[in-house]
């Protein structure tokens, strides 16, 4: 051999530093990789459960039936049968759990009905629309239409 140990001693030291670096990296990696990583794929399995566990706001129409049977049955026979209670009333899960504490708004007709029934040239023609300037202007829609049974 042309070279002796002392000629590449410094190189070995450099190599040692690199190996140390790799070692530190591997240890850090083992320490900091979340335990559930890779459970289902290249992601945290816990994340999937966290996503499942997010709090809901909407209860779903079935939930209202128990306590508001009358409204429920009335609506389900009406022209508004396709509508969910929460479409108009907003999220009501917390109300369903604690009806006394968590009040929900009774929507006024002003900001509600026009969303679906105002005349709009892009809206499909077979959907009932009225011109708010001509159809009994100035009067509350609810004076003639029951929101739970509009016709």
């Amino acid at each position, binding site marked *: 051999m042309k070279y002796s140990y002392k000629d590449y001693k410094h190189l070995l030291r450099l190599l040692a530093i690199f190996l140390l670096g790799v070692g530190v990296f591997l240890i850090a990696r083992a320490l900091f990789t979340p335990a559930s990583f890779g459970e289902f794929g290249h992601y945290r399995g816990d994340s999937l459960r966290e996503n499942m566990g*997010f709090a809901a706001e909407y*209860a779903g129409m079935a939930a209202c039936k128990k306590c508001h049977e009358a409204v429920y049955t009335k609506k389900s026979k009406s022209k508004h049968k396709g509508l969910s209670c929460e479409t108009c009333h907003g999220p009501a899960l917390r109300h369903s759990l604690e009806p006394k504490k968590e009040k929900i708004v009774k929507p006024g007709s002003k900001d509600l009905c026009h969303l679906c029934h105002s005349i709009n*040239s*892009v809206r499909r023609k077979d959907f009932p629309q009225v011109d708010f300037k001509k159809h009994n202007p100035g009067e509350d829609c609810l004076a003639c239409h029951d929101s739970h049974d509009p016709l």
Partner: protein
Amino acid sequence: MKYNRKEFLKIAGKFVLIGGFAKILKANKLFAAVAGKPVNKEYDIKSNLWGYGIDISKCIGCGRCVDACKKENNVPKEPFFFRTWVERYGILENGEVKVDSPNGGLNGFTDKYKDEKLVKKYFVPKICNHCEHPPCVQVCPVGATYTTPDGVTLVDRKYCIGCRYCIQACPYGARYLHPKLHVADKCSLCYHRITKGLLPACVEVCPVKARIVGNLKDPNSEIKKFLNANDIQVLKPHLGTKPKIYYKGMDKEIF
């Protein structure tokens, strides 16, 4: 602003307090699942594959889905952050295509085109396409966005580094950076709801059944019937992302 987790713990806490009440509710299994425990243990992830249908010919552009989505998922209310939004298309006689989506359609639509003669017109709801080959997942450098075994593309809020590469990679503009959490955010198909037997908020509130969701592995599911009974198209099929959001009544101007 409220955070989902905190909010959940709060509700769960209250729920324990009113234990008596809980007993009545337990009769209703659905309820217990929503509020009583974070994860529905009975949910079998392997026998599900979520698909979602949108019937353009039914949509009336009321924007209740956009509103409900923001409320359900704590999406920032400003008009730059949407997990779902509704676009309005109007095609004039001369072929000109007018498209807009003021505030994502959340406040409904004014009758902007009443003086124009529209030869074609439609409202088009959009959400994350939950692609079979999601480009966002492909480019995420750390594995903070992923497709679940049941076919939903989700974001890991605790792991996302906020590099926004996924936002660039999404061809549909379905992602945004949450201004408060500083992580990517997008439609989760209401994963916390569908895994407990509830409908996604947008589907729940849709007055005209323009949105349907279901299990593609179940031959009798609503979505399967929808797919079999109609001519179906997906958005930007040429990109090979294979969306699982299926559109009925899609016109060539929609992309």
